[in-house]
């Protein structure tokens, strides 16, 4: 669930994560493994020659087209479901219109790698995102599925299964393949960003029942349908998945719009002169980075981000602005009153009950607060202290947060903030 506002933090995290060497190791490992797999598969394919050319060509075109229709959007895991389903179906293909197939695992990997590479060319030309990770994932997942299935099939082990059991077996194999992909994706994200592995894996796993199961089912259906009716199945029966892809795209678009509107609502306090320019955005970006460091996962981070964006919204109800918009120096009672007013406003928006609860409780003693509210409180205080404090500001502000009265700022959150700032080498934007 990365987002426009968070990508700022993400980019910083990325540069920060590159420096320590041990994070890079899985990255190199995965890329090397994928490269080796492709090299071996290519060598084997060249030696044996391409068997069943029409089949290879049809699936190659299918995967390439699926890859072409790939897009990267906010909150979307599998950006090329069509390509993934096609590639997995090719790996698990045992028959073509009733005749057993002879393409082995090596040819599957070679064709999928070539087609994916071809489909990625336009994306690279337009400079859209890192392609290498995506390719490595695709190659390794398909290799895994093909190596599991093709030898069994060629050895005739699968013959003993009846028809329905065979279909279920395919589905189970595909689920395994997708799980393998999930592990790889989390490892790659961990290596790129340096964020903790556990929450990343949890986020990836959470997407499996949704789009993951659609990919599995479509892969199985395509493999079975090709086995029954031949290559006609490819263009015709990939349409349902295309529908899923369309739905995902629209969902991503409306999510982005929703986020923009909430960010605009947050800016209203800045325009009204209640808070310094860029304050809400900075608190959201830094807050999400701290939340990630503390091990929060996707939906929790979204709640945190929305709450951070709207944490000052209660000030709109004040008749006169607070000096410089800084709520931290106010009396606790006044802070709570503003927080409650803010919660009431947030409750009217579509942001959800959880977000309202976080906004409402941002001024409570930290022992009674949910984690997100603690983070918002600490990061808000930090940003207010740093604002206009000059070059020494960040260090002084951190010191002040550490020394503040017990129960005001949660110590573990302050430490997480210190770690995040150290990783970003204290270069967070101060003036907005």
């Amino acid at each position: 669930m990365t987002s426009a506002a968070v990508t700022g933090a993400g980019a910083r995290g990325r540069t920060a994560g590159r420096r320590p060497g041990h994070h890079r190791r899985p990255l190199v490992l995965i890329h090397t493994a994928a490269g080796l797999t492709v090299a071996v598969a290519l060598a084997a394919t060249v030696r044996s020659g391409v068997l069943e050319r029409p089949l290879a060509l049809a699936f190659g075109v299918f995967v390439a087209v699926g890859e072409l229709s790939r897009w990267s959007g906010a909150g979307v895991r599998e950006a090329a479901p069509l390509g993934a389903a096609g590639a997995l179906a090719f790996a698990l293909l045992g028959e073509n219109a009733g005749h057993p197939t002879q393409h082995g695992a090596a040819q599957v990997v070679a064709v999928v790698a070539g087609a994916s590479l071809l489909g990625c060319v336009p994306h690279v030309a337009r400079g859209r995102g890192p392609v290498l990770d995506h390719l490595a994932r695709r190659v390794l997942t398909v290799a895994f599925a093909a190596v599991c299935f093709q030898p069994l099939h060629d050895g005739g082990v699968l013959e003993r299964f009846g028809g329905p059991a065979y279909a279920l077996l395919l589905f189970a194999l595909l689920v395994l393949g997708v799980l393998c992909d999930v592990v790889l994706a989390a490892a790659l994200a961990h290596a790129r960003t340096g964020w903790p592995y556990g929450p990343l894996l949890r986020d990836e796993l959470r997407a499996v029942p949704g789009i993951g199961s659609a990919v599995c089912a479509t892969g199985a259906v395509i493999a079975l349908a090709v086995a029954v009716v031949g290559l006609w199945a490819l263009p015709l029966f990939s349409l349902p998945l295309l529908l899923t892809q369309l739905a995902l795209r629209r969902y991503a678009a409306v999510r982005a719009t929703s986020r923009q509107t909430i960010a605009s609502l947050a800016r209203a306090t800045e325009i009204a002169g209640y808070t310094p320019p860029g304050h809400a955005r900075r608190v959201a970006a830094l807050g999400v980075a701290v939340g990630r460091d503390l091990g929060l996962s996707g939906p929790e981070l979204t709640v945190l981000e929305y709450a951070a964006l709207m944490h000052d919204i209660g000030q709109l109800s004040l008749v006169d602005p607070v000096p410089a918009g800084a709520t931290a120096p106010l009396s606790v009672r006044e802070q709570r009153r503003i927080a409650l007013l803010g919660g009431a406003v947030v409750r009217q928006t579509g942001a959800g009950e959880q977000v309202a609860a976080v906004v409402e409780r941002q001024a409570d003693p930290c022992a009674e607060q949910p984690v997100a509210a603690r983070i918002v409180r600490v990061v808000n205080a930090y940003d207010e202290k740093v604002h206009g404090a000059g070059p020494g500001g960040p260090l002084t502000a951190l010191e002040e947060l550490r020394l503040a009265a017990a129960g005001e700022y949660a110590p573990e959150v302050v430490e997480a903030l210190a770690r995040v700032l150290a990783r970003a080498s204290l270069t967070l934007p101060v003036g907005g």
Partner: protein
Amino acid sequence: MEAIPGRARLYVGCVALAALVCLAPVPAVAGTPLPDPSRWAAGLLRADSSSWAVILLAALYAAGRWAARTRFPGSLPAASPVAPVVHPVLLAGAFLLPPPAAALVPLPGILLARVEQRPAGVRRLWRAAQCVPAVWAAARVHGTLGGRDTVAACAVPGALLPAAAAVLVYCAVLALLDGGIRVLAERVPARRAWRGRFSRSLAPLAVHGLAGLMMAVLWHSPYGPVAALLVLFPMGVAWWVFAQYHRERAAHHATIRALVQAVDIKDGYTRGHSERVGQASMMIARELGMDERRIEVLRFAGILHDVGKLGVPTRLLRKDGPLTPEERCVIELHPEYGHEITRGITFLGEARSAILHHHERLDGSGYPYGLVGRQIPEPARVVAVADAFDAMTSTRSYSRARPVAVALEELGRCAGTQFDPRMVGALVRALDRHGWHPVVTADEGAPALPSPASAGDRRGVTR
């Protein structure tokens, strides 16, 4: 829409009778008294060896319908009597089974389902009666074209033509019956009731038809019904994602509403001014023949036109008595504040200019830039008229509400100097045609439909 007129009841009865005829194993049974129901059902199932298929498909249909109702409440589009996720099941039935058996598939699911709106009996009967002839006709056409043999032989290019014909017929019958109930029960003019109904639902149904065909083919293959079930997975996921999309969309609308409610409260205006301006802007835009997307965007621009007042001190907005020139200047900054606040909302696009320029006048005496005539962007000219119209027809602290006719007269007087005559004319025509029924909170709680145009159709018999 609580009471259902007698002629609509008669219509439902006729369709239900037709459905019964469809279900009879021998079509010639029409006209003879109905046989004993239990023997009739037994005969129906024995009439074909595919009784298991009927039971399985009917269970699938009921389960899908139930899941759609309980897991994604409120996401069932009113326009369709059949939850989209279960279309493939019905069509697969039509491709696999003889017509009477295929028509039996949706019955248990529909008759067992809960109906929220009263009178429940008629509505339930209508839903069942509407589905049965459509499925029956599709199966009939498919069978006549020899589709069942091609499906059994898994001959795919050959199976496509009968399937396509069946989907066409299915879509046409559904659209015809649905339009009919709208004409009779809601007194929608016949042209509006049927216009676009068929073409709108054809594309999604074609995809559902392919899924149904795939189910049917796999059903007959050695892999059996298990493989056919897998086909429903991606459809279900697509449906789930669409439901999430609708939820998020509703959340987005709520956020915008919260934004403008804050303004309305701060301003001390009557509640709902912003949304009414949005509605009037939408009516003008529609009258001018703009495309649906632009109309929708203009509606939001109208709703958000005063959002910049969030930046103006509350004291000034609520001040009784005349404002000093300085105070007036501060208040007149609100279009620029609003333009700034909405800077990040990309979907507004060019309509954002409406927020900046809605206080410009055609003769150049407006603010903030004093633009003249066509220099003022079109969206701003639309919203300016809508804003003035609602200001006149609603009660303010300083003036009472005026009748619509008086307000339109006033607008007409200022057309050319202050307002664009084209927009004023469009508003007059739109109000002539549809009247002025301001809604304070548009599409609250209801599933957000693709276009606000269907907002009026929402409370149909079909829900």
